[in-house]
């Protein structure tokens, strides 16, 4: 990385022109990424911000209305608060569920001796499955009469609910679906686990630490930076969730957010405003509010990280 950083110009003119050449080379090398970023990310973000102050249906010219969109969102949009509530519940449960399960599976994979490659692939495959296929699969897994989940509950004597057609349980179905896609987190945890030096465990065993102590005092602290990364990524991802909720609610339960707005994630509400009702300015305002929410939450996690994240080589008082 340091080789590509633009070097500071030094004393002699000859060295300066060489440094100049290297600087040009540097900018040329990152030019594709930089241009892509400006044209496809930064530019549209600025456009979206400007659009959030307009009323635009994509066919007639945009009309400037100032803060009207934001005022409507906070004062006059019942679906906005419902979607925030649904997304908060979704995030609150899917993120820990995903991370805990991923860590558990990673520990198992770390200690496995046979067939590790197969299981690693098996755990990773769901996260790269096409979302439509996954939605159809899960609508069968959670099928009220013939699905295996309700079948297993039936064996235990519990009457399984209607899942995606029951407003009390549809969101839980979505949460389970999101936890199923934990492949990426498992692999990252596995890499983190493998990087914990063995001598720490050996030393702890010699001192008489049991499995629980070894896990809590060595594994978790050494993994804390990995946990931190996975946590932030999962948090951001959970607020942006769209695919599975959209397919399940429109194709299986009724309309966007069915049943009864219990699956109305924030991005579904945004999509409906932008593409079903042609209120692009309003949708842009919603997008920026989501950005701010995610930003605030991520900053909060970042600030808290000094309390619980331990980077290798650090010394704490």
């Amino acid at each position: 990385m340091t080789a590509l950083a633009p070097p500071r110009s030094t004393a002699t003119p000859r060295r300066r022109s060489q440094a100049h050449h290297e600087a040009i080379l540097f900018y040329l090398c990152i030019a594709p990424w930089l241009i892509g970023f400006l044209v496809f990310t930064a530019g549209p973000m600025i456009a979206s911000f400007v659009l959030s102050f307009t009323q635009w249906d994509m066919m007639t010219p945009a009309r400037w209305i100032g803060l009207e969109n934001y005022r409507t969102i906070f004062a006059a949009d019942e679906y906005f608060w419902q979607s925030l509530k649904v997304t908060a519940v979704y995030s609150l449960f899917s993120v820990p569920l995903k991370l805990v399960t991923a860590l558990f599976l990673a520990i198992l994979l770390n200690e496995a001796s046979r067939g590790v490659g197969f299981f690693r692939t098996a755990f990773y495959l769901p996260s790269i499955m096409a979302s439509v296929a996954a939605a159809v699969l899960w609508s069968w897994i959670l099928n009220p009469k013939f699905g295996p989940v309700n079948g297993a509950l039936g064996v235990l004597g519990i009457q399984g609910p209607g899942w995606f057609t029951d407003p009390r349980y549809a969101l839980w179905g979505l949460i389970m679906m999101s936890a199923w896609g934990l492949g990426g987190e498992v692999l990252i945890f596995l890499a983190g686990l493998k990087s914990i030096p063995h001598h720490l465990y050996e030393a702890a065993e010699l001192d008489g630490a049991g499995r629980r102590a070894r896990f809590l005092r060595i594994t978790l602290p050494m993994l804390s930076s990995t946990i931190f990364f996975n946590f932030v990524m999962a948090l951001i991802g959970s607020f942006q969730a769209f695919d599975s909720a959209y397919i399940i609610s429109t194709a299986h339960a009724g309309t966007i957010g069915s049943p009864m707005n219990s699956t109305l994630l924030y991005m579904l509400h945004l999509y409906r405003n932008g593409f079903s009702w042609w209120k692009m300015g309003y949708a842009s305002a919603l997008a920026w509010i989501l950005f701010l929410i995610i930003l605030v939450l991520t900053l909060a996690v970042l600030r808290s990280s000094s309390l619980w994240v331990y980077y290798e080589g650090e010394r704490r008082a």
Partner: protein
Amino acid sequence: MNKYLRVLAISIVIGLLLASCAPGATPTPQIVKETVVKEVEKQVPVTATPQPATIKGTIRVGSWESGGALEPWNNAIKGFEAKYPGVKVQLEAVPQDYGTKLLTQFAAGTAPDIFMVGDGDVAKFVATGSVELLDPYLTGKNPLDLKTFYAGPLSIGQLQGKTYLLTKDYSPLVIFYNKALFDEANVPYPKENWTWDDFLATAQKLTKKDAKGNIVQWGIQLPDNWGDAVWFRGMSPLIYQNGGKVISPDGKKTTDYMNSPETVEAVQFYVDLFRKYKVAPTKEDLAALQGVDLFQTGKVAMLWNGRWPIKDFQKNPKLNFSTVGLPMKKVHANSICWAGFAMYSKSQNKDTAWAFLKYIAAEEGAQQFAKYALTAVQPIAELQGLKDDPYNAAIIKDLEYVVPLPELTTPAFGECVETPFKAALEKLLLQGGDVKAALDEAAAKADACLAKK
């Protein structure tokens, strides 16, 4: 070495930039030909007969269809290109997210010259000025007599008496019934002019339970199209049959319409069919049986739907079925599902686009589409003899009772009226409750939303 690296870096950058700017499907502007067209118009006096000399160039056509449904398109395009040599028609079929793509094309000003529009979107598209008014073309150099169309379907492409769209195809709602199941239960077949009470009694007699009390056969599968639990268009005939309405004719008010006693009674009847009389499978029952065609497998004795599955039913040798019109209460009423063609207001080649539009909506092109769905062109329909066909006769008869679509009264119908109505109906179907109170609330929300538009 440094110089070599620099040259390499520059060429990589240029290569990547070129590769990322893939040419899109933009129409090649036939600028030279257009000026020729305009000059010919000035020189040659206007006559009643079409002038093929002005029809040149390339036009683009947008459709949301895919697979077998593109066959009539391809045949119509071939026929049109043979009739007018020198013209090219590019079909842009967008099976996924057609609406979204069309919106972005409008924003960029590159929408196709002719594009398909669904009935619910007609008012919205016209209001934004993206659809060309067709009246001048109907009476212009290449005229078209609107009397060749059936009045009902034609009216959906017309707003305030002005014509904006021409019909592609349409389907009213109809009840399919399984003759074998009727014979088994010794129930007489439904007849024209049957009432809600006849309908309910028939459905009840055809609902069977097993020893444990689980329903194994339902009397009727109510409108549940495309997985939509509360398909407004499908159940709205009940409201009209009872003399009710959903919105005022000027599209500004729903109170006293959506919660009128007639509408409340109709919605109550609909909800009772699921919850009180239990003659129709609920969303939960359907979720358990997803992927299964309930009508063809004999799990429901009647099906309330549009005309679309009729060809599949006819192909099934084990299915002995027929069709009947919807029941009546105070009046006969039916709703229509409709698709039409529109001309882009910013098209660069409007004369050719109009010629193609006329071809696919009223001339030989329409014959191609008529092979797959109901056509709005009277002469073609009469040639097909659908009125005497045992399966289609009831469908054609019910066309008389089609009610104007409420979606046409305001472009904000989907957002302001349909959303709260569907939410209220969904809640009633899932949890029951007082229908009048639910509809009062929905009407209040709808009016608040409409007031802001």
